Structure formats: C-alpha cells, structure tokens
C-alpha cells in the first residue's frame, strides 16, 4: 500500500513552494491561486496585507514552482487532495485563526479545507467561486461536458503545440521565470499532463453539498460578466453558505485580483475589518 501523505515534514513547504512574508505575529492569511496560474497571480493583492498579516503564498502541486514529482493522480483525483495540501501547509506552519483567500477552483478547495477542520479557519474569501461548472437539473453552472472537452483540446493546442513545445527549450537556463517576461508566456507554467488532469478534476467536480459544511463567515467576491463563474452561481454560493456576504465587483472577467486589484483589496479589507469589529 502506497503512503498517501508526503514523506517528510519540511517537504510539505517545498512540495507546494510555500512563501511566507508579512508580519510574523499577524493573523495568517493564505492565498490560493486558481486553475491555469500560480501564486504570482496574487502579486498585486498580497502586498497590501503585509503590514498587518502573516502572508502565506503557495503553488498547487503541478503548478508554478511546486514539486512535480509529488504529483499523484490518485491523491489529486478530487479537490480533496488539494484541500489536504492546504491543511498540511497550515499544520506545518502552525497556522490558526486563518483567513483563506481562494480564487476560482481554490475557493472550493478552501471550502473543503474549512469543512474538514472548521476550528482552524476564521474567515473565507471566495473569489469567483463555482461549486459546479457543468449544468445540472435545476442548476446552471454555465458549461456542458462538451465544453470541458473543448477546454482539454484548448490545453493541448496551447501546451503541447509548437510554440509551447519550444518554450521550455528557450527557458531551459532560466531559473527565475519572473525575469523572462520578454520571452514567451513565462508565468504560470504548468506540466501539460497535470494541467489536463487538474482541468478535468476542476471542471467536472460537484461540491455543492460541501458549501453547507462551512461555519466560518465567508465573503463571496463576484465579478461582473464573469465567463467562468456567472453571477447566478455566485448568488447560489452565497445562499448555500451558512454565514456569507456577497459583494459584486465592478471589475469584469474572472480575475479581479489581476484586472482590478485595488477594488479586490478594498473589498477583502472591508470584510475583514467588519468581521474583526463584530468579533
């Protein structure tokens, strides 16, 4: 029987390329990136919290600077494997009273983690969450199964096509992808096969029932005209969570943390401030 956990304690931090900054004595705030990207996508948001909070950034296994050899198709066959990683990071760093900020699929990963260890999480911030992307009876997620297949083809074309096949050769000597902006798409590089699997797991998952397991107060940050998580999905999440607040941003698209970082920071700040006052 194969051990499911990661063998060594220190390795959890290496496995997920965990970066800690900010005030060591502050309340911990964990930022989790969504599908298709890595922790770099918090670059305009996380620094705004450095004064007050202990910032924890990480990459999901398979993304960014994570340890690709730790990828295990069985462990990551559902979002629970990713939620376990979040809990292992929290345990490793001894994080309590955690504010978890999850974008896109990581919003649901946070929901699973908070449902598993409710005492560890103080607040959840869910940016563009969707508990189910594929339409179901009486539920509109916005996509069909064929659409998800289309995404996999799109990943093939982009990751395995000519340009991306050449990119690693160009980047081979570059240990620091942040220096490679002039080159081809150098951020958010992912292993193509892992990306495919993660896409399938993400976009075919159904975590609607898990929303009710969350006790911590949650903020649902909904963008205007989000092609991935439509407003009615955000409203659904808000309705199903025991204690939540829905804020619809002026920002459009699916990545307000990149396209409208200031508005995003303000909304999170307001939510945390208000909760602190209430507590």
């Amino acid at each position, binding site marked *: 029987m194969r051990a499911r956990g990661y063998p060594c304690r220190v390795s959890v931090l290496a496995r997920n390329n965990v970066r800690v900054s900010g005030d060591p004595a502050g309340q911990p705030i964990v930022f989790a990136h969504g599908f298709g*990207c890595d922790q*770099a996508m918090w670059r305009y948001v996380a620094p705004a919290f450095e004064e007050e909070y202990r910032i924890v950034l990480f990459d999901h296994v398979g993304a960014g600077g994570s340890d690709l050899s730790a990828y295990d198709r069985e462990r990551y066959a559902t979002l629970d494997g990713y939620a376990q990683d979040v809990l292992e990071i929290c345990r490793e760093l001894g994080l309590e009273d955690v504010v978890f900020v999850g974008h896109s699929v990581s919003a649901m990963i946070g929901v699973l983690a908070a449902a598993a260890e409710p005492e560890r999480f103080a607040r959840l911030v869910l940016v563009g969450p969707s508990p189910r992307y594929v339409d179901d009876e009486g539920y509109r997620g916005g996509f069909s199964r064929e659409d998800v297949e289309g*995404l996999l*083809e799109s990943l093939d074309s982009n990751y395995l096509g000519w340009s991306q096949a050449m990119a690693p050769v160009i980047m081979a000597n570059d240990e620091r992808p942040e220096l490679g902006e002039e080159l081809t798409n150098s951020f958010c590089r992912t292993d193509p096969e892992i990306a495919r699997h993660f896409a399938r797991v993400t976009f075919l998952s159904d975590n609607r029932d898990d929303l009710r397991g969350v006790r911590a107060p949650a903020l649902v940050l909904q963008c205007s005209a989000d*092609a991935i998580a439509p407003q009615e999905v955000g409203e659904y999440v808000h309705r199903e969570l025991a204690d939540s607040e829905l804020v619809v941003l002026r920002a459009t698209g699916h990545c307000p943390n990149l*396209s409208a970082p200031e508005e995003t920071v303000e909304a999170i700040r307001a939510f945390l401030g208000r909760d602190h006052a209430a507590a």
Partner: protein
Amino acid sequence: MPPPERQGSGQALEPLLEETLEELYEGAPCGYLSTLPDGTIVRVNETFLGWTGHDRGALLAGMRFQELLAPGDRIFHETHYAPLLHMQGTVREIAVEIVRADGSRLPVLLNSVLRRDAGGEPRVVRTTVFDATDRRRYEAELLRARREAEARARAATALEHVADGVLLVDENGRIAVANAAAGAILGLEGDAGGRPVAEAIDGWAELEPHVPVGAAGREPPPRATLPFRRGEREQWLSVVGVDAGAGVVYTFRDVTADRRVETMRDRLVDVVSHELRTPLAGVYGAAQTLVAHDLPEDARAQLLTMIAEQAERLRGIVDAIVVARRLDAGELELADAVVDLTALAQSFADERVTVEAPAPVDARGDEGHLRQALGSLVDNALKYGGGGAVRVQVEEQGRRARVVVADDGPGIPPSERERIFERFHRLDPDLHGGVSGVGLGLPVARALVERMGGRLMLEPAGAGATFVIELPLARAG
C-alpha cells in the same frame, strides 16, 4: 536629406499617409482587434471580418472578444490568457478557435499587448489574429505522433522486460529486435541490432530449421522444445515463431532445468521398470517353483537363498532411491562424529578385496552413511573391475583423510568420467560384461560424502578405475 518627391508636397502627404495606414490596417494579412480591458471590442479590421463573417456593427455594439470563442477556449481565455496578459503585459501565440458567424470555427493564434495609461491602469488591448488552420492541423498531427511515439516507447520498455526472450529477424535474416531475455538466453553480446542472425547467434543455423513458425493473426503452432548448443553449453529452448510479414518474431524460454527434471523422471521410470522387474521375476519364479513342486531339500535351499538375494537387491535399490529422495529434500540427518576409517575399510576385506591401512586414521563423518558410500565404490569395483582384485587403501594427506578404491578393470572412458556421477546413468552393459545397475550408487555416495564436508573423485590416471573419498581428519582443527 529627404527624398525629392516629398519636397513641396507637405500638404498632400498627410492624407496619403493616413490612407496608406488605413489600407495597411484594414487589408493586412492578419486580423487586428482592439478591445477594452474587459474584452469589449472597440476596433476591428476588414481581414478579421472577412475571415469570420461577422458584421462590424454587431461586433462594435458592445460585444466582448471572449464571446467569439468556443466555450472551452473561453475557459482557457479566462484562466490563462487574461491572467498572463495582466501579469506580463503581453502574450504570444495563444491558440484558440473563433466561432464564425455561420457557426464554423477558425483556428487562430493570438498575440496581444496590454496598454496602460499614465497611472498604470489598463487602457486597451491590441490583438493580432493569425489564421492557424494549416498550422493547427500540423500541430494536431505532431501531438498525435508524439503520443504514438510515447506509446511505442512504453511498448518497447515492456518488451525489453518480458521474461521470455523475444527476437525479430527481418526478411534479410538480420536481427531487428532482441530483448534483454533473448540476449541472455541466446548469448548475444552488446547491441545485436542489424547483425545477421546466423552470425550473431552461435548455434542458430542448427536450431532455426526445427522451429515451428505460424502465420500472423492465426493461432500460433505449439512451442517446440529443442536442444540449443552454443560452444560448450547445451541448453533446451521452448521456442515458437510467428511470421509477422516483415520478418519472423521468435519467442524463447530456457527450459534446460525443466528438461533435466523430466529426463530424471524418465530415467527413474526406466530403472523401476527394468531393474526392479528382474529381481521381482526371480523372486516370483522361485516362489512359484517352491509352491508347485515337491523339491529335494538342497534344491529348496538353493531357491530360498536366491529369493533372499533378490529381495536384498530390491531393498538396496529402494534404499538408494529413498536416500536420494531424502538428500534432495534435505531431510537426511547426518552425524558429525569421529569415524575410524581403518576399521571401516577393513570390514570390507575378503578374498577379492585387499585393504592397506598402515596406521589408524580418524576422520569426521557419519559412520553408517560412510559405510554405504564406500560399499558402493567397492561394489562397483567388483562389478566393473573385470573380475580382478580390488584394493582399498587408507591414508592421510595433509589435513585430510583419504580412502582409495582401485581396480584393474578397463577403466572409465573419458566421455563418461562426469556422467557416471549423474543419477540413473549407467555404463553401457555391452561394454562392461553385461553388468547393469540402478545408476544411483555413485551419485548418492558423492552427495553423502559432500554432505560430510568431503569429496568423492575419480582419479585421472592409472590403469583401471580409481575412486577417492576425501574427508576432514578428526584431529584437524
């Protein structure tokens, strides 16, 4: 210095330049799109409209670029393209499909630049759209080829590690594929690929004509078990071939060990059927005669003696088989005691056996089984020694004790020197005065002596046959 035609025509130049730029923008061999940061299309060129069949008015009425993408690509746009554009300010060669007005899809490559205003706020995105129809087809081929190549590589790995030997010989008689097991079984050295099979594999020419070869797609013929000689080694191979069209695929298994067991079993059956039946027939015949006829006392005594002798011979054969079996199973317990070899040897002395033992020699071993081993040697010498005298000599040599048993018979032919120690192997009765035996005496004697930490050898020189038992001296160590 400016070109001459521009002199004095400054007024006319500006509209001309504008017209050229306009023409270049609208008629460029690629699509141009300008969008707001949220994707709202604000400008688009003729090329793009021509390729996609969309109406300029409809696109500029608040349509967002991502709405022109197939749903799967829309997800990719939001999860990859948009984040990259915001972080890098530019993205290159994003592969998506644009849905045309008629619903068909146009594979394109997108290059985009995000322009920010003086305050750093995103202002506009400029996108170049390339028709990637041919290229995408090629890439799809490439991807398919790559996945096929990976599948082949996995198959090759599996083949390499198959426990059976696999050998592909092409129609020119050259080795196309030989896996690791084939190399080990057939004695191939290094990379045999491309070498003529008859040259690379010693013994192939003798083997190949006997290998059954079936046709591809049919049930393969039964495997043949064939002897395979390379150099001094003789192996038995279970082998079958399949004609794959571009050559023959052979699969091998080395069954030498299985074959040895089978041979042994066959020999056992021979021995039982022959060697046991003769004394049994004697016992039966004598007993029948005793029952049916009222014989005189001396004739009765003669028959009873014969029955006893034949029964003793039978017991000896059965004992030898039992001891051999118990040796194999590791069930035979041997004592490790001091044995007086001189006394032991002298117990064999009679009118045909002379024993020379100058001084008492103590060795370590199991007396009962040592007596059995020495008995076998003396019996053999009496049987095969041509009727002459048998000499048994006990001596010390260094730290070892030796018992030498020699006869004056015809000796052991060189070809038989090792085989006489194989079980159920017997010397040709025609060459040895019709004497036959079970073929267990020597192999069991050797196994027993070896279990006691000694050796049993056939001395190379001298007339007749000279066997030596060597044992550790009791006082040594």
